[in-house]
């Protein structure tokens, strides 16, 4: 399998501290890879190494199958990035900021209008960035990262400082990229809900180590859901289901059904209806991903 990004045993040491330790990251084409971890876990350091801003202490990075050490310029020509806070020149207008990059990248001027349109900054193109709100600066940062029509887009905390509508907008935009432009996206965040709504694959890092890397579905399975039933006469219902060999619990007026296959739920409902019990609610109870995430990052390695 050919990966777009592949790191092997990537480590970075700052003085005595190992910021990143033996990281193996694998990102396939067309994925939205959610790079998740608490603040200070080594996400940004990893991203900086991917972009050639920092040299790894040890380990190897291959992007598009090429080694970053030897092919840095070739690789970066096909990568767009937004690292931490957006970088811009406040004394220049939005257009001039993009123009400054465009001259180096060498794409046609038309592309500037395209990316401004994508992030909806067309109207303020000729205003100085100094006066922009944080959200607008963030959007400008995303516009900058899209300027060279990258095949790999690396976004570090892209929804930082955005208001809810801005967050949704950026999220929708990011979701569109793989299909419409064939991009692969690496997006880092310390917020699981953020990643949960966008990513197809998740890598969780804590204290510089990757502790989980798999599809978001696998991660959701780990969330292990149960079905809760609210019925009249819970006690009676519980006994009935138990008598029929189901794994159920009775807690505070709710029946918790631990096997949640469709057949099992249907069977349980049928039994209850036949016993003339009223069913008020059937709900899926998820152990929130937030909980899993917290327990994983606390214990260092849960998987």
């Amino acid at each position, binding site marked *: 399998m050919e990966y777009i990004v592949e790191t092997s045993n990537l480590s970075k040491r700052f003085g005595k501290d190992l910021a990143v330790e033996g990281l193996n990251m694998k990102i396939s084409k067309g994925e939205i890879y959610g790079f998740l971890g608490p603040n200070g876990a080594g996400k940004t350091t990893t991203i*900086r190494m991917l*972009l*050639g*801003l*920092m*040299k790894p202490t040890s380990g190897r990075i291959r992007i598009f199958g090429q080694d970053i050490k030897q092919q*840095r*310029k*070739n690789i*970066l*020509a096909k*990568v767009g*990035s937004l*690292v*931490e*806070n*957006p*970088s*811009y*020149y*406040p*004394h*220049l207008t939005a257009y*001039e900021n993009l*123009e*400054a*990059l465009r*001259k*180096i*990248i*060498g794409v046609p001027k038309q592309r500037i209008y395209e990316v401004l349109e994508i992030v909806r900054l067309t109207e303020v193109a000729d205003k100085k960035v100094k006066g922009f709100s944080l959200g607008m600066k963030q959007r400008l940062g995303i516009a*900058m990262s899209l300027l060279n029509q990258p095949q790999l887009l690396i976004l570090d905390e892209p929804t930082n400082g955005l208001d809810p509508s801005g967050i949704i907008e950026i999220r929708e935009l990011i979701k569109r990229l793989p299909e419409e432009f064939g991009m692969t996206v690496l997006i880092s965040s310390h917020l699981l809900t953020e990643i949960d709504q966008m990513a197809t694959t998740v890598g969780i890092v804590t204290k510089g180590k990757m502790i989980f890397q798999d599809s978001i579905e696998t991660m959701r399975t780990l969330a292990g859901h149960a079905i809760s039933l609210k019925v009249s006469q819970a006690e009676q219902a519980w006994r009935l289901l138990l008598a029929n060999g189901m794994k159920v619990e009775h807690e505070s007026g709710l029946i918790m059904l631990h096997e949640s296959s469709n057949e099992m739920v249907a069977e349980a409902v049928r039994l209850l209806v036949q016993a003339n019990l009223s069913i008020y609610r059937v709900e899926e109870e998820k152990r929130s991903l937030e909980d899993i995430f917290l327990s994983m990052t606390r214990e260092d390695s849960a998987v």
Partner: protein
Amino acid sequence: MISMMQTDFLKIKRKGFWFLTFLGPIGVVALQMVNYGVRKEYLLQQSENDWLYYLQNISVFTPLALVLGIAIFTSFIASIENETNAWKQLISLPVSKMMVYLSKFTILACLLFISSILLMLFTLGFGIFLSFDEAIPWWELVKYSFYPYFAALPVLALQLWIATVSKNQGVPITTGIFGVIFAYSAYMLPDWMIWKWPSLMNQWDEPLINVLLGLGVGCLLYVMGMLDFTRRDVK
């Protein structure tokens, strides 16, 4: 490289770079306007060759303006990238770090060179206005306008290096201030100090030595600065 420099020229827009480029030579000549305006008769009595004496008067302040200008320019150009840490954006583009550094150096060298041309023109203009008896000493005029520039290249290379690698802009400003003080007291400095060179003074009384030293050591310091810049991680 051309596109990199175009980008850098775009970035220095509205930051007062061009204003300073003009202000430097105007300031130097303006000081002599005051000087000659107040006591022209006295000054004309001071020497046999009024044109040369006038050029020497001008050249007293040229090194000071140069070193001060270098300190301000280098700190400014670094602060443009430092302000929002645009280094990370810039370096993650498909450009070599050497090119980034070379472009900054070249831009500043260009601006200072333009300053030197302006200095020559302004000096010439005011000299003609003063209507000295002697013919215009063209070669001396060129020498006094451009020799200090070449002799100041090591200071430019050093200040750019310090400014680009310091996270705290207090560091280059401090070295810049010391540079200006050194340039001001050039006559008492030993010959090996680079801040003395723009004054064109040396024990052999041969300004050309300062020019050659400036070019040589300037190149050396430039290469050292560039290599150090490429070696460092971008935060």
